[in-house]
């Protein structure tokens, strides 16, 4: 026992003990399922995992011929293209406006952060009711203003914008708070020097704030990208992929294949692997770009 304590007591070794809980959890709940998903993608296997049949890359071939899967990739790309830039830049602007520590800004920060702590289900149901084509508050208000009846959640071509808006509304608070924290770390002396040189607020923002918080910007950009490519909850609750599959994201479709119909775990895993590869490529490219800038 003494020997063991002595062995682990060295700083270089005890570090592993501190890391152990996190590493074990990471292996159990991330690495192992990932490896299993890779394995399952090569099998024709149902949800109960019995009677698995090895079929090689057939699931992947089927995915690229599946019009609903291709459509879901398109929808996910459109959603990401709308959600990420608007959220990353919108949160930056808002953060710049509420960065100073005064009561008013603290109240605004709390208000912006509120949707982050609400469940996606509650948010989805709330927006579904507010935007309902006939009994929704917003729809009725717009109609009473003479703007006609807008069917926000049932119009192909429009609904994807609505879903993106809900998603941005729900999560931009967290991005804004991260930006605020980063902005507050920028040395005040830089702003004082700029002010003495006659730089206005906008020039200060572009030439001092923006370059100083670049790592935070990249962090938010990468995490939002990965998050947007995996969008599920808001879509599942508000539109369930409709109307006419125009908001069916890749993860929504994967879920339906795995749990709603056919229970094809192998096929769902193959689609997950494809999505994983896409997210990985995008993230690596961004990481590379970030390092280049540094």
């Amino acid at each position, binding site marked *: 026992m003494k020997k063991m304590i002595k062995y682990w007591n060295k700083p270089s070794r005890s570090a592993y003990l501190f890391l152990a809980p996190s590493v074990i959890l990471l292996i159990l709940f991330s690495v192992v399922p990932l490896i299993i998903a890779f394995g399952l993608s090569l099998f024709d296997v149902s949800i109960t995992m019995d009677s698995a049949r090895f079929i090689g890359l057939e699931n992947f071939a089927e995915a690229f011929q599946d019009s609903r899967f291709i459509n879901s990739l398109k929808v996910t790309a459109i959603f990401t293209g709308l959600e990420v830039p608007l959220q990353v830049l919108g949160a930056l602007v808002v953060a710049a406006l509420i960065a100073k520590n005064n009561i008013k800004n603290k109240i605004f920060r709390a208000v912006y952060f509120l949707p982050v702590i609400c469940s996606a289900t509650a948010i989805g149901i709330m927006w579904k009711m507010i935007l309902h084509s*006939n009994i929704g508050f917003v729809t009725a208000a717009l109609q009473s203003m003479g703007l006609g009846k807008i069917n926000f959640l049932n119009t192909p071509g429009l609904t994807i914008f609505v879903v993106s808006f809900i998603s941005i509304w729900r999560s931009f608070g967290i991005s804004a708070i991260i930006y605020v924290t980063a902005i507050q770390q920028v040395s005040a002396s830089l702003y004082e020097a700029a002010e003495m040189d006659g730089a206005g607020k906008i020039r200060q923002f572009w030439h001092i704030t923006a370059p100083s918080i670049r790592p935070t910007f990249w962090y938010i950009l990468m995490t939002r990208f990965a998050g947007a490519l995996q969008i599920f909850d808001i879509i599942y609750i508000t539109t369930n992929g409709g*109307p*006419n599959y125009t908001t069916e994201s890749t993860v929504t479709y994967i879920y339906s294949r795995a749990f709603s119909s056919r229970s094809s775990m192998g096929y769902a895993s193959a689609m997950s692997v494809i999505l994983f590869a896409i997210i990985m490529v995008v993230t690596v490219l961004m990481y590379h770009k970030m390092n280049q800038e540094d």
Partner: protein
Amino acid sequence: MKKVNKWKRLAALGVSAMMIFSTVACGSDSKEGSKTDDGDVKKSTKGTTISFWNSFTGSDGDMLVELVNRYNEENKDGITVEMDISSDFDSQLSTAFAAGTGPTMILSSSAYRFTYGDYMQDIGDVFDKTNLNKDDFIQSYLDYCSEGDKLYFVPFQVVGYYMYWNKDLFQAAGLNPETPPSTWEEWQSYAEKITDEGKNIYGSGISYDYPYQIAHMMQRLGGLAVKDDNGSWKADFAGNTGYTDFLTMYKTLIDNGDNPLEADTDSMVSAGQIGMTVGGPWVTAGLDTAGVNYGIGLIPQGDAGDMNSVEVLGFSVTTTASDEEKEAAYKFIEWWNSENTEGSSPALEWSVSNGFPAYTYSVQEKEEYKQSEKLSVMSSANPDAPTDFIVDSSFPGINDILNDVIPEMINSVAFGNASVEDALEKAQNTADKIVEEYSK
């Protein structure tokens, strides 16, 4: 200083060990946990404890909890039913079965036998081993729960779909509020009369995102989508005149503005903005709460003839149950369907409180049941008519037809991507692939 560092490290080591231990403990066998929680080892060894999983997360779940608690208190066999209600019941079940575990008893749609049939026991002997009278159960519902001569479920709840109409809107449109449409032609003409665009009122409330609703109506007009064709399955979409009529009617209703292009029509029904709709017994809860003056009746018949399409939910015993646990599950099922000294039973209470039609003749005969207008209407369907819902009841791919074929078909028609004929042709192709998959 050195000593302090040593103790700090030891403390950190201890915390790390505790974290790992707690992680492992979280995944430990729950049976052991419950034994300790009870603090009564004697009880758990003397009686039998059975686990019972279901997905009744709604208000009816509260009643189920109450009834199970009553059983646990009342039964003299020392049986304890440990119920687990989960909104994620399906994935919980599949994960458990995949891991070689699972509950003693589940409560689910009888269609679960197609997915989890390998994990379900034949419980046909429940009538021999208990005082339950097989003849009291409506045979067509028992058939729905069977596969060949094997019974996988004892009925618990019969879910049929019915027509609901708003009597006030009928009156406002100059229609007799006591006479709902009896044909689909009448449905269309009534819808036209009821619709009042200025008031956001629609005569017909058919959702493009509600495959169960669509399927019940389609079936009345065009029969089953997958039939038994001399021992092999055959999909019947393309060229099905009944389905063509239904889709044409739906498209016309939308184009004329008599049916909203809306996924969530239930909210509109409760808001009193829909003249006629089709839905399950749960629709009445929303209507009652909102104070809507409504009528309930059978869905108009079409050319496909008399039918009583339903989904039957039932109790089933899994393969993880021991003989002793199976017997305990039988006793619970027997209690559920047995009358007490006052002539009531949990099955009757459930039926009357939640508005689901009875699956036994004895419950249907009860005065309390007969007094309910809703239940009388629901029970007025011919019990001898086929109970198959959209596909032959022994076709395992019902979920695929409901989740993959019908939604794509109805969406493409509703949003004008395809003509009715093209939509049916595409549906036929998809259904053929599903049929082929299940015919292997």
